[in-house]
């Protein structure tokens, strides 16, 4: 992807732009999911009274479970979508080496 590599100065030779691009896409996907978990589990676990700056015991435990549960939910939905078939333009099936739907 030419968005970042500037012909000059860049270590040229054998950079495969397709691979770089796919890696960026995977990176964006993982970042997107991470941000969604941060936001979702914040809403589920963190009291908005903000009486103190530390996580309470209850909040900490809740976060751990929330992240685990989110991963499990994500996996179940991924399996479901793969069963339903790639009815969103075949995008599902071609998701790299299948690694993305299961994160």
């Amino acid at each position, binding site marked *: 992807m030419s968005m970042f590599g500037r012909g000059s100065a860049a270590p040229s030779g054998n950079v495969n732009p397709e691979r770089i691009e796919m890696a960026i896409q995977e990176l964006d996907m993982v970042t997107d*999911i991470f941000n969604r978990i941060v936001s979702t589990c914040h809403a589920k676990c963190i009291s908005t009274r903000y009486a103190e700056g530390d996580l309470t015991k209850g909040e900490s435990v809740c976060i751990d479970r929330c992240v685990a549960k*989110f991963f499990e939910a994500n996996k179940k939905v991924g399996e479901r979508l793969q069963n339903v078939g790639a009815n969103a333009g075949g*995008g599902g099936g071609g998701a790299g080496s299948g690694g993305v739907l299961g994160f």
Partner: protein
Amino acid sequence: MDFSGFNAAEQTQMTRIIEKKQMQDFMRMYSNLVERCFTSCCNDFTSKALSTKEEQCMMNCADKFLKHSERVGARFAEQNAEIMNNQQK
């Protein structure tokens, strides 16, 4: 959208771009779906495992969201076609 004024080289490039964007859109739709359904379905954090009830809710929510998106897509296409028609009159 109407790319009929594009020459062959431009159409080839647009096709590639559109494919790339569809992939990205699918990914965003997917994680948006998970987030949305999780927010609606999972409210018990006394355990880290999905309960049967939560899992059922996630599945229904995912199915419904896909059907919803599809239906919106169909209506959206109709409305767009109508606008295109009116613009050409």
